[in-house]
């Protein structure tokens, strides 16, 4: 804790303060379930261009903690994007260990320092999956004002004998 400058702490606390506007739109009302038309063949990771044009999809169940997050799908690839979430860490809690890509917006320097804002998780949805991934944020807790606290958990699985996968973001 002592290694972090007071300025950095102040910047993070400021970033955590309420009133941060959501820049990400709510899922459009016509967003389709992520399972619709899901291919069973494996494909390569989508390119940035593909993600740019990716449609918004809905998870099987989404809780209030995922407000401000958007789910995109390209082929079997899912991207959960939470641009306003002060993301401290992203951790795999268990299950399938491959196929992930994580992104946390880096700390910006200077007067307008606003420490990590925004996190993304990318993974493929494939038969046999069991994935549990946790996004953490900062907040007051047992390790002081910058304790790592739960932000949301993505659980995705597609058991061999089930026709479609299930994905919850709670």
């Amino acid at each position: 804790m002592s290694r972090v400058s007071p300025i950095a702490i102040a910047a993070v606390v400021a970033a955590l303060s309420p009133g941060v506007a959501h820049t990400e739109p709510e899922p459009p009302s016509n967003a389709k379930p992520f399972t619709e038309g899901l291919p069973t063949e494996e494909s390569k990771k989508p390119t940035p261009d593909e993600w740019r044009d990716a449609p918004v999809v809905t998870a099987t169940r989404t809780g209030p903690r995922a407000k401000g997050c958007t789910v995109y799908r390209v082929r079997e690839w899912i991207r959960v994007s939470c641009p306003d979430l002060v993301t401290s860490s992203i951790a795999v809690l268990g299950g399938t260990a491959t196929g992930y890509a994580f992104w946390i917006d880096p700390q910006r320097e200077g007067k307008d320092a606003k420490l990590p804002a925004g996190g993304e998780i990318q993974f493929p949805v494939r038969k046999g999956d069991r994935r549990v991934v946790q996004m953490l944020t900062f907040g007051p807790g047992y390790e002081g004002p910058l304790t790592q606290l739960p932000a949301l958990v993505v659980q995705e699985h597609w058991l061999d004998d089930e026709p479609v996968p299930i994905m919850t973001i709670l």
Partner: protein
Amino acid sequence: MTFVPRGVPQHVRALAFLAFGLAACGDPAAPPAPSAASPASAGASGPAVAPSIPPPSTLPDRPLTGGVIARLGGTETVVVVDEDHAALHLTPDAKTAAAPDAFVKVEMPGAPAQAVAWGDTVLVTIRDPGLLLRLRLEGATLKEVGRVALPGDAWGLAVTRDTKRAVVTSAWTRKVSVIDLEKLAVASTLDVAREPRGVTLSNDGDTAWVSHLVGAKLTKVSGVGASPSAAPVTLAASPLRAPSGKALEAALGYALALSPDDSRLFVARHALGAMGREAWFGAPTVDVLRTKTGDGIAPLHQGNAMVYRSAVAKELETPDTKANLPADALSPFIQPRDIRYRATHQTLLVVGEGDNALVELDALGLDPTIGVLRTYVLGKETDPHLGGAKTCAAPSGVALSQDENTAYVFCRATYDFARVDLSGDPFEVPNAELVFVRLGSDPYGAEVATGRRLFYDATDKLTSGGLACAGCHPEGRDDGFVWHEASFDTPDGGTRSNFVGSYENVPDLAKTKGVPRRTPMLAGRVSANGPYGWRGESATIAERITAGMGLHRWGGIPQHAPENLTARASFIAAFIRRGLVTPPKPARTLTPDEERGKVVFESKEASCTLCHKPESEFTDRVSYPLKPLPAQKRFDDEPKAAFKTPSLLFLEGRAPYLHDGSAPSLERLVADNQDRMGKTSHLSEQDRAALVAYLKTL
């Protein structure tokens, strides 16, 4: 995944629902069918003008799973099972019941445990003597129409959809009975592991799943309809919170529930040794079994799983930061007692005995405890002096209304019926007021009533550190678990002795695993003045309870005046001495083999009675230095080997044995004893078997 019962088309279900609805709206004044037989009538008491019972529906649309609250399908008629008053409370409309006179009390021939209801029939398990009672709705009350004698401590109950078979667990006697309900006779009795409790049936009625109060394994009973057989099924507890790659043990498996399509089995219980901040006691959990393959669906935690950290997180991280463990609340509920599947929302309802709460969990994900949707705080009127709720303490059962928008709960420590509105936004607790109806007062008076509340309560910070007495001593029995008693530093300052479920719970810096301490059973074994504790270190039971308040937590007891602990301990002592119910032990004469064992036990050469004095609960309560037991890898060596002579009462039902739990059975204990305790090395094989047979009668 679609949750529609197999083989039941949706339109048939819709028609069935409509038929039930019509039945519920029929003429409530219609005279009941005459009783065909009444071997013994259950006594009834209630208001002068009895509330009318709606006409019954016919067969259930799903197998029935018993509980302390049972609703008659197609109606809001509810039966509340009140074990301590040996009674049922019957109300014709639980949705409107708001006062005690809305309930009729029906006395039972012994302490009832669970009930199911359909048509005009109510089935109830009775613990002691072990019975299954068949009751029929007659007017505003219930009349017994038949009974089946069962192994003692009959507890859990499930009935097939065609109502031809029932499956009953007998907790203390470790049996599962399959009952032919047409003949009202036992079709089969199976031996199973310790403390079978909850039971639920598949839609085809051929498979029963049984949870246990002790251990992580379940029991699968196959062939319920024809020739039943039982087999254990492994289901690791709280895998995402396990130490890396380790399968955890469990306790408190009171209840389980199947998804409507039978594909998933949800088991509410407590994971021992689970990881988390200050998780000395482990973590409550709902573990999910995939019934088709027989494996858990949640993956095991791997310590080296991928973590991606922001630059700030990297700088701030301490050895205590565990980013790849679930960071959500360690205890979304405490001491689960019942679980129900809410099909309309694909969620689970769990009642927590320790935190007096009803929680709604997501049933779709791999780990339901990560997806807490709503928490209803049921415990009200917190005692300002002693802590704990004075209304709706220790909820022990939940049932859903026909439309699944209302939950009915019974709170066993204060005898309150509660009605909970579940309607509205699935992520928000409705603003509707909770309704409570007190159905009785404590049968043992105010002192025991207070002790009873405290015994089950995990919310009072002085009495416990997040798990109540009942968390390790369920119903005053034991969790069959060997805890680690370890000394280590905690942030509140100082080095203290605390209990932890696994050595991985101890901070790495402490470099200790703790010494093994098996949970002792309390019921029927705490009448002596003292001393108490494995080493006899507490002079009285109250002192032992106070010591326990310090041991069973993380760190030290919050700032307090000593008399606050003493007062709590005296109430808890009153309850565990007078309020706990001992396991059934029918009086009978000893068999010749048991008589032979008694002679061995009392012989001068074996010397058992020198320390295990029959006249004082089979103990002299003195500590003796004994030859140390072999060291166990997961524990530290004992600093000294003197242990107080333990009581031998209720020995048979509480394996494993010895302070370190190293003897899995009495047979093993006697075989391996040599001359460590008394002298047994000279005994023949027959004499050893006879000694074990006698010990099992104590």
